[in-house]
């Protein structure tokens, strides 16, 4: 009787499993086709046939796994039943689960250790190449140490308690509805720790986001960074050290940034295809986007701020290590800093990057002198600058200034 029931049960079991599998065919199929990479043109029907064979193969594989699981389950059940028939106690699943948690705790600890050493070594933590980045790294370490201690303690307690206080019929739980003292302690303790973190975080944050040069501070190098789908445009100021104004209405094929020539600071601005930065000198990025939101992200320097259409944003930082030094220290000849886009902006979001190079001051000046002016001959013609009084006046002034030298 019991056997008959068992067989019937199995049939239904496998039937339903089959049904569900057909339902999840889609899911399976994706993981399956990893070796059907025959993309070469050829007999397409043969190809699809091959594809379905592979799909079928993987579905079958999953079915087999399901059956094995079902059979193992049955074996356990039969074993359990025989134990009970012999008058012994069946499998104690409750204890099995408790032991499971302890095993999970131990194996998990090993996994966390592995991840911290292997994957942790691949991160950029402790390797910030900017002045404020080093402060952030310190703060990161402090936060990591505190949270890691809490993480370990609470997880050990959680799984430890689960194991230690596994249920038994002989025992009753300890009726302990509340204890105000303990509760006050563990409300106040995290509050104090968090206050400390908040205060340091707040002060650091205010310092980093203060992008205006203070009096007496040497002026920061101003660089204009403009994002659009899917590239970054870089503009440097000329000898005056000031960037000219922009107006989005002026954007066209030759004036890609919409630089306004009503502003005399615009005339000597330079166009660049690399973000070249002198080491140990404060840089202020003047950021804007033309179409959608982008984000200027340079993880090596701990720099990130969104580029928003219609809203200029700024980030001031000081790089501390040249690209050449990084290559030498990392022993990686092809190392480069990059600026990535870090706000979803469309299909090629993943490839919207700009090369960033940090060099010595001398190299920077040399590079700067080779850059072409933003004001191209074609643009001059288009804007009819020859007749522009402001332009003439600026040219004259510049000539006088160079004569005085």
């Amino acid at each position, binding site marked *: 009787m019991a056997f008959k029931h068992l067989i019937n049960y199995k049939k239904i079991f496998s039937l*339903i499993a089959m049904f569900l599998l057909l339902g999840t065919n889609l899911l399976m199929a994706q993981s399956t086709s990893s070796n059907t990479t025959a993309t070469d043109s050829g007999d397409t029907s043969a190809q699809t046939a091959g594809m379905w064979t592979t799909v079928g193969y993987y579905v079958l594989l999953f079915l087999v796994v399901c059956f094995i699981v079902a059979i193992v389950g049955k074996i356990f059940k039969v074993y359990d039943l025989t134990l009970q028939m012999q008058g012994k106690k069946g499998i104690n*699943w409750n204890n099995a689960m408790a032991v499971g948690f302890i095993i999970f705790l131990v194996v998990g600890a090993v996994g966390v250790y592995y991840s911290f050493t292997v994957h942790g070594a691949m991160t950029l933590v402790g390797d910030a190449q900017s002045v404020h980045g080093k402060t952030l790294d310190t703060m990161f370490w402090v936060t990591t140490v505190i949270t890691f201690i809490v993480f370990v303690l609470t997880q050990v307690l959680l799984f430890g308690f689960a194991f230690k206080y596994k249920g038994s019929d002989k025992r009753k739980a300890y009726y302990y509805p509340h204890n105000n003292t303990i509760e006050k302690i563990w409300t106040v303790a995290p509050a104090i720790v968090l206050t400390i973190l908040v205060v340091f975080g707040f002060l650091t944050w205010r310092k980093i986001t203060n992008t205006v040069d203070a009096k007496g501070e040497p002026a920061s190098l101003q660089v204009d960074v403009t994002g659009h789908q899917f590239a970054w445009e870089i503009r440097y100021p000329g000898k005056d050290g000031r960037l000219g104004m922009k107006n989005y209405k002026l954007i066209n094929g030759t004036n890609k940034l919409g630089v306004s020539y009503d502003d005399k600071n615009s005339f000597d601005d330079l166009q660049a295809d690399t973000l070249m930065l002198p080491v140990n000198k404060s840089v202020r990025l003047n950021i804007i986007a033309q179409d959608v939101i982008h984000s200027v992200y340079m993880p090596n320097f701990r720099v990130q701020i969104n580029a928003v259409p219609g809203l200029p944003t700024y980030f001031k930082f000081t790089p501390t290590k040249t690209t050449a030094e990084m290559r030498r220290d990392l022993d990686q000849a092809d190392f480069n800093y990059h600026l990535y886009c870090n706000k979803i902006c469309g299909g090629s979001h993943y490839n919207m990057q700009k090369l960033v190079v940090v060099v010595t001051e001398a190299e920077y000046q040399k590079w700067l002198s080779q850059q072409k002016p933003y004001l191209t001959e074609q643009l001059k013609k288009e804007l009819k600058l020859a007749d522009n009084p402001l332009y003439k006046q600026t040219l004259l002034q510049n000539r006088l200034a160079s004569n005085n030298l």
Partner: protein
Amino acid sequence: MSTLTVQDHAVVQHGHDHEHHHTENFWTKYIFSQDHKMIARQFLITGIIMAVIAMMLSILFRIQLAYPEKAFPLLETLLGRFAPGGRLDTNFYLSLVTIHGTIMVFFVLTAGLSGTFSNLLIPYQLGARDMASPFMNMLSYWLFFIASVIMMASFFTEKGPAGPGWTIYPPLSALPKAMPGSGLGMTYWLISMVLFVASQLMGGINYISTILNMRTKGMDLWKMPLTIWAFFLTAILGVLAFPVLVAGVVLLIFDRSFGTSFYLSEIVVQGQQMPFEGGSPILFQHLFWFLGHPEVYIVIMPALGISSEVIATNSRKPIFGYHAMVYSLIGITVLSFIVWGHHMFVTGMNPFLGGVFMITTLIIAVPSAVKTFNYLATLWRGNIRFTPAMLFAIGLVSFFISGGLTGIFLGNAALDINLHDTYFVVAHFHLVMGSAAIFGMLAGVYHWFPKMFGRMMDEKLGYLHFWLTFIGAYLVFFPMHFMGLGGVPRRYYSFTEIESFKEWLTLNTFITWAAIMSALAQVAFLFNFFYSIFFGKKATQNPWNSTTLEWTTPVEHIHGNWPGEIPTVYRWPYDYSKPGHDEDFIPQTVPFSQTLSSNLPHDFEDNPVNLESHKDWVNIQRSNEEEVK
């Protein structure tokens, strides 16, 4: 202490209820049902279907991340123009990410979780015959259903579903020229969300009014189980926050279709100046996150409520610090309205404002920490019974800790500069609100399945499901923290274009296989769930020896829940393992007069008269004992 008690109204009407049974047909019973139990099941099954769909989408983009250079002809067969040559289209990849996020956050963890368990448990655990407005309750489900259908229908539009991320920041979402996913698919997304919010509001108003007005005799607010407290505060959050999303979405519809400039200013797309001027993209982010942040608590609070109930029941111990648990839920509710700016530290929002939001954000960590410690204290010296529900509840606590702690990094504006929008964030929220909330939901399903379907789920399959999912989720999300610390941005189609990211490819492949394993483990759940509905072992009335009211109803569902009068409540819901009582639980319906040997002064804290009589009784007992000696 509040003793706002509302007496039972429904008893009088009850005599008539039986007569209505005969008029039920298939349509009124299973489709347009106004019965809270049926609506709960409708929400649950729709939620599960949406979850499976969203999970499959995630496997699709995980495969792309693991094998960016490989072509899978099967993908072309399945997806057609979205995967030309067997490789996912870059725009379709973003659509997958968007729809995965939208479905999981809104359709599964908001509607599927709150909708199921609020509907099921509010009337059951409070002792009400149904919701305050059963018709509105039905509308709530059907609007949710229509929203789901519209969301899925966007896969059949020419340019594919919405693609600007689940946060749909304009201008990307406002300019159809900017990406294919901002075309018709985006319109579908917006319409779907408006309907969804309408559904949530109807549900939320119903939950609040039922909880405030329809509690049975003796059920004052401080005798409510923590599940109900969680659903109550969740509903308040939803009712206050969701309308703001509608406002944001409607303005976006205006910008998209009627040429207004709420969010748009000074835009040039593909060399062409747009006429928009004076708007601010940041405004949308404020409106979105004013909902968006309470939303993550809308997702996690019901899960925390469910796990409180499951952990107490299966530890056979009262939940530790019941009042602290309620106050921390209230604290989270209030604070969650003033922390939204921590999603916007680096968006160009005034940096001073960022500093303020950082302070409020780290304050909200305190009530969350209190909850965690209270869970641990509940387990301490318990008599733990590992039902699958209990396993999932413990898993929830583990995820809540792991994911919550990384929130301390992200809530710190200064550290967020480098972590914002990287995989660190992905790891953080998938643990703390993704995995934790889904584990809360699964714990609820395993725990209340006997109440919902009158049958038991298979325990062993539940064990298998738990371990594979628990291990799988950690394998997927734990290593992602390190990718984020390596500066890897989220929502990247592939990392092959960038030299320094190539080293992460092996880890990506590993994560994908872990994700596939966890996804396949759900087959164990799906089989168990659907098989048990029809063929599971018949449930007893109170299979978990629980104290709450829902277990005093008969196994067979009846209209009006209780065959006779609604039971009266005399005590709080956590009298487990009370010393002096013969059983290890005392249901809420048992009056103190029947349990003299186990009463404690603590039970009468808010009732001075009874406290006196209790003291008298104790004194008499004591003098009797002395006489015997």
